[in-house]
């Protein structure tokens, strides 16, 4: 990393840069902390369908494993309750900062969030291959003892969690269900707990 403004000669997405200020160039609202992650997935369904399912935030817990629930407060405001280590939860209010039908949704957490975060999800029509969904998330791991625990989860986890959540989103949109090796319903419930 370098402090100087680095001019990139390539076309690689900012979130994959080894040098330069990826956060500033990522296009996500309201820089939160120093950690940023981006994942892309191609979903073999029309962009309108994929966008509509995602835009109804009440749907998100069906494939976002760590999200316990999302309360819809208004068309742009929502309250998130997310599982944290040791049976705890973290909460925040989020507000939609940008929305273009079938193209982009961006959000940021309101002041007072347990984990300040912001992000941007882009939807692009990929023709016969369906829809490319790219999620970019920035987050600010909190301090303190519990914070450390949460940070441990969030410094490592968002990269893994975002990837897994997108895979589940893809599975749900393409196959109507989420793949599991559970042999019975009890095992499945334990997986999701």
């Amino acid at each position, binding site marked *: 990393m370098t402090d100087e403004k680095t001019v990139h000669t390539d076309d690689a997405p900012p979130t994959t840069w080894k040098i330069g200020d990826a956060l500033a160039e990522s296009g996500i609202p309201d820089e939160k902390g120093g950690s940023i992650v981006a994942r892309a997935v*191609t979903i*073999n369904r029309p962009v309108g369908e994929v966008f509509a399912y995602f835009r109804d935030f009440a749907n998100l817990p069906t494939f976002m494993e760590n999200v316990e629930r999302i309360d819809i407060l208004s068309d742009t405001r929502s309250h998130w309750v997310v599982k944290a280590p040791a049976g705890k939860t973290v909460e925040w209010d989020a507000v939609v900062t940008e929305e273009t039908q079938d193209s982009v949704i961006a959000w940021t957490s309101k002041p007072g969030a347990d984990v300040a975060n912001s992000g941007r999800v882009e939807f692009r029509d990929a023709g016969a*291959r*369906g829809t490319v969904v790219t999620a970019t998330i920035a987050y600010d791991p909190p301090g303190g003892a519990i914070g450390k625990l949460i940070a441990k989860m969030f410094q490592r986890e968002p990269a*893994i969690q975002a*990837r*897994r*959540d997108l*895979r*589940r989103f*893809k*599975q749900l949109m*393409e*196959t*109507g*269900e*989420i*793949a*599991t*090796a*559970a*042999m*019975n*319903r009890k*095992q*499945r419930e334990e997986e999701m707990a």
Partner: protein
Amino acid sequence: MRALAWHGKHDVRVDTVDDPEIVNQRDCIIKVTATAICGSDLHLYDGYIPTMQAGDILGHEFMGEVVEVGAKSTLKKGQKVVVPFTIACGSCYHCGKHQYSACDNGLPADNQDIAQELYGQPMAGLFGYSHMTGGYAGGQAEYVRVPFSDVGPIVIPDGVDDEKVLFLSDILPTGWMAAENAQIEPGDTVAVWGCGPVGLFAVQSAFLMGAERVIAIDHFPHRLELAKKFGAETINYEESAVYEALMVMTGGIGPDAVIDSVGLEAHGFFVDNVLDQIKASTFLGTDRAHSIRQAIIACRKGGRVSMPAVYGGFIDKFPLGALMEKGLTLKTGQTHVQHYMPALLNAIMEGKIDTTFLISHRMDLEDAPKGYDMFKNNQNEVTKVVLKPGFN
């Protein structure tokens, strides 16, 4: 129910475990009527495959009767089905191209991490074959939960003997795809390393695709005899030098296409193989790969290399120079079983392909541990063990 569970290297047991249930809407439950031990099950038995857990139920070659269906299954109770070993969704881009073993959605999302790191992208799920391939309970059991049952299982007409169609689940399509990947042209000479079930089906398939000569290579006399029955010429590598024999038998040209159906547990005391074995046992490398090296060296210039054999990790001393300088084409992959099943079922029904010749032993599921031991230790006579719940 009773099921064959892995407990460690050379330790498999028939345990009593919970019955499976419908979990997702596209699932079905089948009552297993016949299931086989596969050569690749021996990789698990020998401890070559990572991410196994004690209690994992093995088996990926199985068939049975549908006893329960989810709301979105297209099957009906009472139907007899053969189940592909690859778990594929039928809805993703790859399934749309009939690349079923590359299905995006067959693996649970969390299990995709390992393959993504190791291979770059996750693959389809597999029954009974470690957690890297999904951790799905396998078919060496009384009952199995079959996901995506509207896509995978093929319905077998009434009155057809299980033993005739059981191998549609894996080894017959695998042998067929091996020959297809060899891109055989009329008049070709094809060399096949390994006369296990896949190799023997590859021999039959190669002739059906127009090969003039097939040369089969192994060290078990009985297996070479079976290859001979289908019209192959044979080389026993314990009795003859393989490369030299192939060069003389092909007039100095080399085989037009070569098929490696041996894979990561190649036997034999070749220098590179012994080195591989030392490395495998010291975790420096996982795959022992003499057969693929020999196949590439023997193949004629501009020829084709087909590799149905299972490799999981890394090998060194891979003859990359020979592959490049000779301009060879290499085709490989886990089998796209769902793609091949319908045509191969027809070929069996029309008597074009013989499958039952392979079965050397039939046992009760309860005797499965004995079956593994026999298959492992007497590969000359034990060509295929079929397990049937309630056989005794």
